[in-house]
């Protein structure tokens, strides 16, 4: 049960980023899974700790590149979505071609676990849980602060927000690159648990889009929306464990 809740937080983190991308980035980020994959591959190259830093930096940079492309080429949500899909495929393909593996890759790192309420939980899952917690706290603080108002404004009507001096473009940049870097980081945090191959990010993408879509039906604004995402994903993951 505990591991399910923890997993729920992981899903919430991803889905939240997807939702942010949609609300403020103004597109459905289909490259998200590939960023996760990218992170996992990075962790093959260097020590675990370094890979965490490296992946979050690289994730941010590639995300920024995507943002620039979108800024240059895209005129509406559809363009941006297509571009992100293109980016996703491109990342996977570049990884596939550069690594040229004849089998799934593994980081030789031992999987360690700790006991919480006599249930074994993997350390890496805990890291993710922490990351997600930090993310949520940060998000709540921003949303409840004055800059949160700007965020809501940008969500509801970006033209109007721009007219009232909210730097929407900067927000978009931060959201897109930031979420990319988070996805990348998640990838390398979880890498020891993964069988690493180019297509591994796909299911992550699908599930997080599913969840953000479901929670979007419930709606809500500002912090409410993102808490809704959290609740949905935790419920989702717990319910699944109960059913199956």
């Amino acid at each position, binding site marked *: 049960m505990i591991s399910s809740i923890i997993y729920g937080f992981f899903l919430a983190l991803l889905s939240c980023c997807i939702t942010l991308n949609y609300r403020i980035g103004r597109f459905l980020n289909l490259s998200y899974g590939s960023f996760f994959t990218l992170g996992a591959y990075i962790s093959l190259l260097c020590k675990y700790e370094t890979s965490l830093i490296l992946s979050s930096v690289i994730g941010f940079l590639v995300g920024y590149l995507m943002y620039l*492309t979108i800024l240059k*080429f*895209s*005129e509406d949500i*559809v*363009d941006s979505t*297509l*571009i992100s*899909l*293109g*980016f*996703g*495929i*491109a990342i*996977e*393909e*570049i990884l596939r*071609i550069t690594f040229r593996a004849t089998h799934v890759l593994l980081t030789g790192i031992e999987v360690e676990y700790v006991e919480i309420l006599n249930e074994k939980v993997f350390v890496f899952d805990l890291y993710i849980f922490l990351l997600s917690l930090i993310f949520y706290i940060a998000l709540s603080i921003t949303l409840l602060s004055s800059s949160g108002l700007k965020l809501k404004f940008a969500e509801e009507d970006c033209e109007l927000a721009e007219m009232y001096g909210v730097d929407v473009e900067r927000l978009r940049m931060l959201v897109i690159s930031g979420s990319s870097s988070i996805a990348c980081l998640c990838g390398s945090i979880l890498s020891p648990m993964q069988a690493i191959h180019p297509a591994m990010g796909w299911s992550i993408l*699908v599930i997080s*889009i*599913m969840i953000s*879509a*479901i929670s*979007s*039906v419930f709606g809500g604004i500002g912090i409410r929306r993102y808490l809704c995402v959290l609740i949905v994903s935790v419920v989702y993951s717990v319910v699944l464990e109960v059913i199956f």
Partner: protein
Amino acid sequence: MRFNRFSCILCSVRGDLLIRDLLLVIIVFAPILTQNYSILWISTLSMIYSLLVISWLFMERQSGWTSFAHSIPFGLAAYLLAIYPYAVFIAPLASTALFLTISKLDRVKFVFVTFVLTVVFWLSSFYMVIERNGISIGGEEGFSVLSLYLSESYIFAVLLLISSYVFVRVLEKSSIGLKMAAMRDDEEAARAIGINVFKYRFMNFVISCSIASLSGICYALFFGHVSPDVFSIEVALFPFIATFIAGRAWISAVVGSYILVIVSRVFSGFVPDFHLLIYAIVLIASPKLRRWWGVKC
């Protein structure tokens, strides 16, 4: 003034009939001249997808509802054909019912919910297992259907494509098409002038789903085998990408499908290592392509 109108009609006729429809005819019939198996194969596949795109576009353009779930009528029809052919007609009806139910939500939510549904259908199609004389078939392996020869599938596809193309073109110009267009632009205003919005939405969805199902059937017969891939998100996204690469005219539904199929399938023959990269680049550049086509069509 009168002359003006006349010349305008003339040019519209030229634009409408000669150029676009000629292009269609060329695209459809050129492959016969090259007796090349793979070219014929690729163009048959493209035509099947063109059908799907047309069905999707009919809904998107005439009723204003953007669906991410046209893989459902497509796949359902294919699966039913494989499992219980007599029930194929259920596919369009069921999907119509589904779409109508979702259309109780607003148009933005419609997009999301249809996408979720696509994923649900796709994933559950893997669990579609039935017992036939002792051994369980289906699942990831899918089901076998009687398969047509390439030539037969080609002819079948041509017939379906041309007829549905003509059908939508005619319908668009008809009074029904006009009413649908009105409904698309503003449902309340449409009601104010006595258009029964639900009736026309229903009509639109039925037509769209039927064409999609037809393409699904054609697909199944063409491959002689259906697997969960017919429900895949790739299929669901296909019309969307195709039209946004090639523009939103009826003809560009066809052109877009050809472009996509050729880019994603044929390149795998020439540059197996990099064809997906090329695909990616096409996607990234698609806004430009799309605008270019937008001017054309």
